[in-house]
């Protein structure tokens, strides 16, 4: 049982850092630009498709990853220029609609470009195989690498946000947008930068997860909503909130699926426990979200309620 717990904790951490990579960009876009972007999930998908293409072209995962990053930056800048920028001054409703349209376009465009058959990305040889943990337990090296990469990005973001001039502007922008532009900062440039950064992070998440998941057109959807939950729990505009929220959501989700039914066995018939556990597990993160919002409508680290 403890073995299982440790494994699931690791799995939770892996899902958590992925969610963090996606949520970090989203929360900044919300917080600084006040733009709701439903298309953030499809960026994650684009990252996976890009690496699938580049890895196949070059024959190497690492070269693919290297090519994916500038491509992701270009994708981010183009989307910002064409769709997001005209939306800055618009209502949230307009933003919802336009980015919803963008989701449709990208999902369908990916189908046209890459077909409907799921693609697959081979594991880099360097990181294949698993390492033994305790007893018969093994854990894939690649998943540990994902955790490490996610933590490294988180640390990097921490340094950038807290110890650089750009980071200062980001923090200031998340707290008081008007003040920052009043101080003569080129807000348009800052916005482009923030959006592109978010796009690169989401694409990076999609790219590093591609070798363990099949790359297909639906992959952005489920992640998008979990990411929203993360951002809402963590508080809009807060990187730290996104990090803790992501880990919290991922661990509750992973542990809930395994241990929910097991715990329910103590108070219910086995069949009923299995049934109830399966019903409750997918709802757990939403219940968690509701509980946190009930206590703190602005999320754990949110500055303002809207």
């Amino acid at each position, binding site marked *: 049982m403890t073995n299982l717990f440790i*494994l699931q904790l690791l799995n939770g951490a892996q*899902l958590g850092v992925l969610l963090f990579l996606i949520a970090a960009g989203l929360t900044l876009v919300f917080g600084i630009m006040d733009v709701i972007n439903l298309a953030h999930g499809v960026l994650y998908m684009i990252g996976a498709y890009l690496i699938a293409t580049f890895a196949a072209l070059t024959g190497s995962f690492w070269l693919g990853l290297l090519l994916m990053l500038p491509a992701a930056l270009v994708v981010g800048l183009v989307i910002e220029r064409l769709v997001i920028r005209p939306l800055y001054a618009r209502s949230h409703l307009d933003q919802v609609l336009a980015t919803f349209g963008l989701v449709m376009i990208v999902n369908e465009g990916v189908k046209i470009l890459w077909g*409907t*058959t799921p693609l*697959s990305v081979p594991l880099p040889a360097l990181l294949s*195989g*698993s390492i033994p943990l305790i007893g018969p337990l093994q854990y894939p090296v690649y998943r540990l690498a994902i955790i490490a990469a996610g933590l490294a990005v988180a640390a990097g973001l921490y340094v950038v946000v807290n110890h650089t001039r750009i980071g200062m502007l980001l923090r200031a922008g998340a707290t008081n947008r008007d003040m920052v532009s009043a101080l003569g900062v080129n807000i348009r440039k800052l916005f482009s930068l923030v959006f592109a950064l978010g796009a690169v992070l989401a694409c990076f998440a999609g790219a590093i997860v591609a070798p363990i998941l*099949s790359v*297909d057109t639906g992959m952005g959807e489920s992640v998008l909503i979990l990411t929203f939950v993360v951002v809402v729990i963590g508080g809009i505009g807060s990187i730290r909130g996104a990090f803790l929220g992501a880990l919290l959501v991922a661990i509750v989700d992973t542990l809930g699926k395994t241990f929910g039914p097991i715990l329910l066995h103590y108070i219910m018939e086995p069949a009923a426990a299995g049934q109830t556990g*399966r019903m409750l597990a997918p709802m757990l993160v939403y219940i968690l979200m509701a509980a946190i919002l009930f206590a703190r409508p602005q999320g754990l680290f949110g500055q303002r309620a809207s």
Partner: protein
Amino acid sequence: MTTKTKLLASTFAALAALPAAAQDLPSANDGVLKIGLIYTLSGPAGALGTQARDGFMLAVNQIKEIGGMPTEIIIVDDEQRPDLAADKARELVARDQVDFVVGPIFSNILGAIHKPVTETGTILISTNAGTSGYAGAECNENFFVTSYQNDQNHEVMGAYAQKQGYQNVFLMAPNYQAGKDSLNGFKHSYTGGVAGEVFTELGQLDFSSELAQIAAFQPDALFTFMPGGMGVNLVKQYSQAGLTSIPFLSAFTVDETTLPATQDAAVGLMGGANWAPDMDNAANKTFVDGYLAAYDAVPGTYAMQAYDAAQLIDSAVRSVGGDLTDRAALKAALHKADFASPRGDFSFGNNNFPIQDFYLVKAEKRADGKYQTAIVEKIFDDYKDNYADQCPL
């Protein structure tokens, strides 16, 4: 009843009594054979429907005129959305007035289209989904199946596990009806112990937490049912997690639709099937070679069963001389299943579900670099499903 409601009721009765706008079966004898194909062509599982459509169209191209009649094929995509499928099936029947509806891939889509199609007297031929209800008490004279009853491939794996003397098998399937049918099917012919039973979310792509449980339990074998993209992920992650020492028994998980994606990760994994591309008979050679030539891919069961549906329609329409108005004769001709299936022995039981052989198959790499499943051994001979006795037909 108050006066007011009486008035309402009589108004409705009057409305209903207006001449019914072609709600009954359209006159089917317009000299053209119309067939509607309804498959999941887009989305994560789009590859399955695409195979089935290609298999059906291969037969159409080989036969030229199905049933010796000018043939019109209408292809629709159900997008794996049951609600949409119900609508599209109605459109095929009411607007396009097709003579046959062929499809779908998924059981949930079958549940959605079964009533709207069969209640109008139009014939529905499922080339993949075969839910237990429609095999048993809810069997229908307008409903034929060229695939199998959903439980059967799982029963094959159960029988194999039993034969191997496994005592401790871990079971895993997605949390939907076919998933539950699957585990029940496995347990039908396996009486040993169960190490764990897990239902995953439908469409789940990361199996890390389930694989962790398998690693912790160290069962004799894993039995799983993970069609489409789910299977691709599971197979890749299974080998990545270093679990390949535990035998991987599956159904609809390792097949020609997923092998191009999983490639070497799946080689050696086992499944149960009613056919494999390497079967040695003339009909299979025509089918597999034709498919390879037309689509540059190895066909899977989805393609084979759809191919047979076209052959089935062809044989029946020919035997009634193209007269689609005599429904009873047409159904009798269909029931005879007078065609050469690539899988060899094939006949219909009383419930219009197939009676056929089942095999243990194993994934392998072909000489041309493609991947396929190959027959290891026959597990069941002329095998009938367990629900046929409940069917009043």
